[in-house]
């Protein structure tokens, strides 16, 4: 049974409307204790925060189910198509905060055509009527229009937090409406979203008086902003702690902003980190500006870094717990003097331009490191990789507390993975992307089976795994056998036969999210998992070996599973071949907004 979806309650409970409310008016002695109990429960359940606990509590009996539904204020929906908005508002009456996820992750890599769905519109319109007190909306991979944002801004007078992660469909005009109408806005975070430039000066749209803003993140907005307005905004936002600027803010402008509010800031996204205005020959004292940032623990930005100014951040390095260099092409020589000071660093994102040498420096200094992400500067398959197993080995030896890893490289060895599996027992997320497809261990020439096998075997807390390189069925046998806690698995260009996927589907008891591309898994494998698809959030299989016939069988056998076939050619010759399969459980049947290229079986 999955813990994290609110729709996990058994179907029967959801359909029966609880009648005890109707009985309260008749003051018979039978209902009186219920009434008291209900009030008591309400007061007690208010304190339950964790949705796992709440899901469990709601299963005790109908009364608990009902009261839990009344007291849940924060709802998490991992797949927007798992249920309809109407069901949400019927089940939970007093929602203040919604976290909603839409498209599957592979959509980020162009594996899904645009206009697939995940529209926010039906959600916002339903909630506008049901939850006028709504305060927070956190969306990931949803399609949000400017109209949706306008409706949101108008419908929820107490609205406080808008977080849009990897979303699209809206522009600066939608942001302007939110800025203008949401007078209690504390958080406006646009993260890795595609925001169209409507040439609207949204920064000027914030109200004139003192704002409640605590966090403003717009580093992904690819549009120039009115800096004067931003300065004014920062000046009248005394509660501002997090500010992430986009690349249209120059170093001089950052300097001016820091003069205004540096001591309060805990998180700073530095914008372009390059000089905008060249006419001043004497650059301002950036070092002093950063020295004033006594509370900054999280630093990012550097979108168009001028490396000669990088040392200006040295004063904050000792306090940093999070550093994001992943937009900056920084060489090892430039990097080492900086990282040398970052003893408290826990989260570190960077480009592979820092090379193995830079990683060794990280390993030497950052003993508290929990999360490391190394992105490729040049994401192609056949380039000379600047990072390799050497960097990984160094990290595993130096950063023993590592919990989460994302590592792009060109070459890797089993030995390095085995070492990491022993050195870093706290690993919960291990995502290795060997960019050359089907690459074996470049020292021994063997498949990467033993390396990944060691990871699943020794990292007992592993919940998320992404594999790459040359992998045979043996690797999957290891995953099935040892991956006891794995919830998310990403596979690409791996495996030899159906057995590989079978190992995973017949093992991995906690598997929730399975995404596979370009691997030789077919109908036999798909059928082998039918006993568990209801307990998973979704399964994605693209460019595998599935046939339409088998998918139809699965759809027929599992009525509460929505089986989407995307982009299949409906020409007769290849009618049987399934290009992309995306299936997920749903309480409300297939969606009504599927575009033409989606066939729901």
């Amino acid at each position, binding site marked *: 049974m999955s813990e994290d979806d609110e729709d996990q309650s058994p179907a029967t409970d959801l359909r029966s409307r609880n009648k005890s409310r109707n009985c309260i008016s008749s003051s018979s002695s039978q209902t009186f204790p219920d009434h008291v109990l209900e009030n008591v429960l309400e007061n007690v359940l208010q304190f339950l925060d964790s949705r796992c606990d709440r899901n469990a509590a709601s299963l005790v009996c109908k009364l608990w189910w009902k009261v839990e539904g009344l007291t849940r204020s924060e709802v998490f929906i991992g797949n927007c198509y798992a249920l309809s908005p109407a069901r949400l508002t019927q089940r939970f009456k007093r929602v203040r905060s919604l976290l909603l996820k839409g498209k599957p992750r592979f959509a980020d890599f162009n594996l899904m055509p645009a206009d697939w769905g995940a529209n926010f519109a039906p959600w916002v319109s339903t909630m506008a009527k049901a939850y006028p007190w709504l305060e927070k909306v956190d969306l990931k991979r949803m399609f949000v229009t400017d109209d949706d944002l306008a409706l949101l801004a108008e419908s929820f007078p107490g609205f406080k937090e808008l977080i849009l992660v990897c979303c699209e469909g809206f522009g600066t005009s939608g942001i302007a409406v939110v800025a203008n109408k949401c007078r209690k806005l504390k958080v406006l975070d646009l993260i890795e979203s595609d925001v169209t430039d409507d040439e609207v000066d949204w920064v000027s749209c914030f109200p004139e008086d003192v704002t409640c803003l605590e966090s403003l993140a717009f580093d992904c907005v690819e549009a120039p902003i009115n800096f004067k307005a931003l300065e004014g905004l920062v000046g009248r936002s005394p509660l501002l702690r997090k500010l992430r600027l986009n690349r249209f803010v120059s170093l001089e402008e950052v300097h001016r902003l820091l003069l205004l509010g540096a001591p309060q800031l805990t998180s700073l996204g530095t914008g372009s980190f390059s000089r905008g205005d060249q006419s001043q020959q004497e650059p301002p004292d950036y070092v002093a500006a950063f020295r004033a940032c006594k509370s900054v623990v999280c630093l990012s930005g550097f979108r168009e870094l001028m490396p000669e100014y990088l040392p200006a951040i040295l004063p904050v390095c000792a306090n940093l717990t999070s550093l994001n260099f992943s937009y900056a092409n920084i060489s090892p020589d430039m990097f080492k003097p900086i990282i040398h000071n970052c003893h408290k660093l826990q989260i570190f994102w960077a480009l592979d331009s820092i090379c193995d040498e830079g990683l060794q420096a990280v390993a030497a200094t950052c003993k508290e490191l929990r999360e490391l992400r190394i992105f490729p500067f040049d*994401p192609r398959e056949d380039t000379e990789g600047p990072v390799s197993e050497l960097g990984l080995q160094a990290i595993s030896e130096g950063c023993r507390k590592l919990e989460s890893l994302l590592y*792009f490289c060109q070459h890797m060895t089993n030995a390095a993975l085995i070492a990491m599996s022993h050195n870093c027992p706290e690993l919960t997320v291990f995502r290795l992307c060997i960019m050359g497809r089907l*690459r074996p261990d470049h020292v021994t020439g063997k498949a990467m089976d033993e390396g990944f096998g060691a990871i699943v075997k020794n990292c007992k807390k592993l919940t998320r795994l992404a594999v790459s390189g040359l992998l045979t069925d043996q690797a999957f046998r290891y995953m099935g056998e040892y991956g006891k806690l794995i919830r998310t698995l990403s596979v690409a260009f791996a495996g030899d036969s159906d057995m590989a996927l079978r190992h995973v589907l017949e093992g991995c008891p906690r598997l929730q999210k399975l995404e596979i591309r*370009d691997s030789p898994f077919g109908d036999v494998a798909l059928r082998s998992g039918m006993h568990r698809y209801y307990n998973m959030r979704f399964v994605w299989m693209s460019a595998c*070996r599935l046939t339409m016939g088998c998918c139809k069988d699965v759809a027929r056998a599992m009525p509460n599973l929505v089986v989407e076939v995307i982009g299949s050619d409906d020409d007769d010759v290849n009618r049987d071949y399934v290009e992309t399969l995306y299936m997920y459980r749903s309480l409300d049947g297939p969606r009504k907004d599927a575009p033409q*290229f989606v066939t729901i079986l």
Partner: protein
Amino acid sequence: MEGCPRNRETCPKLLDLIPQERKWYHDEGKNNTDQEKKLELRLAPPGGDEEDGSVMKKKNTKKEAEDKTIFNLSGNHFSPSNKTNYAPHHISQKRTAPGPVVGWPPVRSFRKNLASSSSSKLGNDQINKSGDGEKQAEPKREGMFVKINMDSVPIGRKVDLSAYGSYEQLSFAVDKLFRGLLAAQRDASGGEGEGKPIIGLLDGKGEFTLTYEDNEGDKMLVGDVPWQMFVSSVKRLRVIKSSEISSALRFGCSKEDKMRN
């Protein structure tokens, strides 16, 4: 969708030997026996078996930045009229993977263009040294990329003319591209600020002037013809010292009357 230009022709390469008709895939669809695997085209010495890692080494086929391989056409998967692209399936069958593929490596689009943006200034010589020193990143769309070189700067760049709508924008872009590089050339210690702005490219008043070579091979000053006409005829750009205008243009040019003092 970025990264995969559509409708490009395939380079006549080894990959063209792989038939593109659907029929071939369809036959392969369900029974991929060992025998058939052996008959598959590979980029490896014959006789290697599936498991041996040495056979799996992908040969380093030349991949142009523009990705003119059939696998890239798989970007057209979702367009209704396209009937010939099942390229990615070949990957799952064969043990070697010749061409680039949609969505691989799995990097989000805003991270893909770092190599071609002006952010790659002096930060990392190691990466820039690979190849010919010029950043050959995948174009993010069907852009009009032309090479641009600058006098006294050894590293050439590329600009996407479709991103600009006027000479001013182009001039500004050139400034952004080369300012740092030029400063690095001039200041041997490499740390003395990022250099003066490169201005006056179009009016002959600055230290440098922007010139171009058109499709007839003539070298001309930028700025004289309407923008669209310029874009349709330009083949490459060059930023030259203003003092050298006369000699630069004389060499292979018949339009000397455009020169100014």
